[in-house]
């Protein structure tokens, strides 16, 4: 048992190390010149001597392994470097952005999980009826829809045509983030969260439906029925827990996918979260920030998977926490 726990831990650590090394390698393989990216529009007013000084100061002339060692050493002490586009330490930028993203992603995660599971239960219990057909059709359609297009549709209908929701941002224009009221924040959160929830519902719905159909065809459900169990009791005692397992695993495993979706939704609604920072970092070639984001998202995904295993085991004790 202890051996397997250690093996599991070693595996996760090796993956994190590989992600860190791999991202650093990808960044250093890029043809983008970090000095050029840093000076940007001031390029004309900066001579080659000054460029050389910046390169020397940043250690760009050192061999790659040495640079990696220096950077990794700093990472161990919690120093991820300075974000070039925001002019703040990467850790500060990540913390600021994570707060906004956390609100958005948690809302979307909970909504898509709850609605997806409920709709999947309904579709599975009513398999073959028009309710099931409509729900499944809807889910299959959403599974093929581009996230940003769904966002654009919502933006057009609710913000432009109806004027019910703001066009973008996390707080009203001209308001400092600290001054916005809770209601104003929720108002700005509505559409991006709705976009991510709509897209996120599809896989949960379809997998739950499939699990429910399988459970309903099982011998123990037939036995319960023959004993006179009513549909409500059937769902409560026989179906719910068995159908929850795939939904739980899927929902925890989809955190990475959700982050990808938040990149797109935050771009559509100009919502200042981690996703928007990722896009900006890539567009404006902010290597330290991009590396920090790669590490943070890898940790989020791996933690999500680990949580998924634990909760899966709690729902279905036959499932191994370690497998």
């Amino acid at each position: 048992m202890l051996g397997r726990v250690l093996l599991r831990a070693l595996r996760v650590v090796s993956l994190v190390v590989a992600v860190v090394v791999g991202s650093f390698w990808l960044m250093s393989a890029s043809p983008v010149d970090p000095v050029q990216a840093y000076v940007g529009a001031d390029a004309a007013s900066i001579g080659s001597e000054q460029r050389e000084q910046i390169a020397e100061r940043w250690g760009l002339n050192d061999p790659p392994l040495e640079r990696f060692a220096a950077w990794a050493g700093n990472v161990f002490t919690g120093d991820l470097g300075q974000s070039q586009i925001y002019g703040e330490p990467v850790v500060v930028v990540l913390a600021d952005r994570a707060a906004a993203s956390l609100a958005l992603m948690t809302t979307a995660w909970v909504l898509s999980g709850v609605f997806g599971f409920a709709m999947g239960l309904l579709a599975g219990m009513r398999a073959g009826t028009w309710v099931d057909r409509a729900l499944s059709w809807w889910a299959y359609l959403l599974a093929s829809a581009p996230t940003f297009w769904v966002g654009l549709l919502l933006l057009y209908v609710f913000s432009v045509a109806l004027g019910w929701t703001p066009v973008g941002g996390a707080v009203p224009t001209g308001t400092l983030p600290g001054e916005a009221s809770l209601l104003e924040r929720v108002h700005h959160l509505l559409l991006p969260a709705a976009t991510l929830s709509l897209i996120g519902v599809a896989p949960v719905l379809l997998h739950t439906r499939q699990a429910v159909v399988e459970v309903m065809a099982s011998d123990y459900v037939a036995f319960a029925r023959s004993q006179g169990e009513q549909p409500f009791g059937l769902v409560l005692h026989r179906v719910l827990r068995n159908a929850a397992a795939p939904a739980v695993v899927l929902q925890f495993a989809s955190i990475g996918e959700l982050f990808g979706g938040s990149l797109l939704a935050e771009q559509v609604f100009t919502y200042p979260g981690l996703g928007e920072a990722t896009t900006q970092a890539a567009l404006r070639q902010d290597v330290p920030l991009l590396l920090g984001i790669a590490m943070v998202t890898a940790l989020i995904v791996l933690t999500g998977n680990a949580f998924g295993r634990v909760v899966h085991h709690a729902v279905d004790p036959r499932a191994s926490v370690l497998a």
Partner: protein
Amino acid sequence: MSLLVRNLDDLALDAGVTSGAPLPGRGRRARTLMWLGVAVLVVLGVVVAATLVSGSAGDTDLPGRNASPSPDALFGTDRLGRDVLERTLVGLRLSLVVGTSAALGSGAIALLLALAAVAGGRVGAAVVTWLVDLFLALPHLVLLILITFALGGGTSAVVIAIAVTHWPRLTLVLTAVGREVAASDHVAISLALGHGRVHVARRHLVPHLLPQLSVGTVLMFPHAILHEAALSFLGLGIDPGLPAIGVMLAESMRSLSAGHWWLAVLPGLALLVVVKLVDTIGTSIRALADPRSHHL
């Protein structure tokens, strides 16, 4: 829209199977073949139409700019007076090209890794599983961004990035099938008869993997296309000068508040339909090649 009904039929039939209703055998096969044919024809039609209009797709017509959809321009025109339908068609063709190259690349990687996992013993299997876990450890879009960044951006960078990141799930499927075959009696007999590992892999393993591989590769397409569109939308994919759906939708955001809804709605809808069609092709081939998969 009616093309989407196929899934409803599947669900109804699935439900019929599980509740013990009789299966309409021949009718279902014919219907699957029909949808497959329709989907292939429409996709080919998009490619042909795009090739026909690709010459005039970039033509600007400033007096006729920002026109809403009309019989003249079914999808309307954009802020430079370019025909949105023509640009959409060319963009879809580009998406299909990116999707094809990426799916073929990922399919080849998946086959090689699955063979390595099955034939490579415990070490081979452990290495492949670790690689799969590694590629799934980052959100897919973040991984794509890192790779396109490393390659310096542009269309070819997107194709490569998508090709080298879509193999993990197919590799898992192929490895599972390969293990099953490798553990079967006929492989044991073949080995006992003195046939070499290469012979067994070629004659016994690959034939079982091919149907899964072809279906898996086609089903990779929708993901590849959607990821390409997402990257382009963020401004990190296809060169902004080219008519790609993602680029067009990103541009449409500028004039959405002016009420130019057609710039966003119609190209996105066209992309959705094409993704759905390719998905139909994949699931239809699977249904025909392995009828049982429909009942699982």
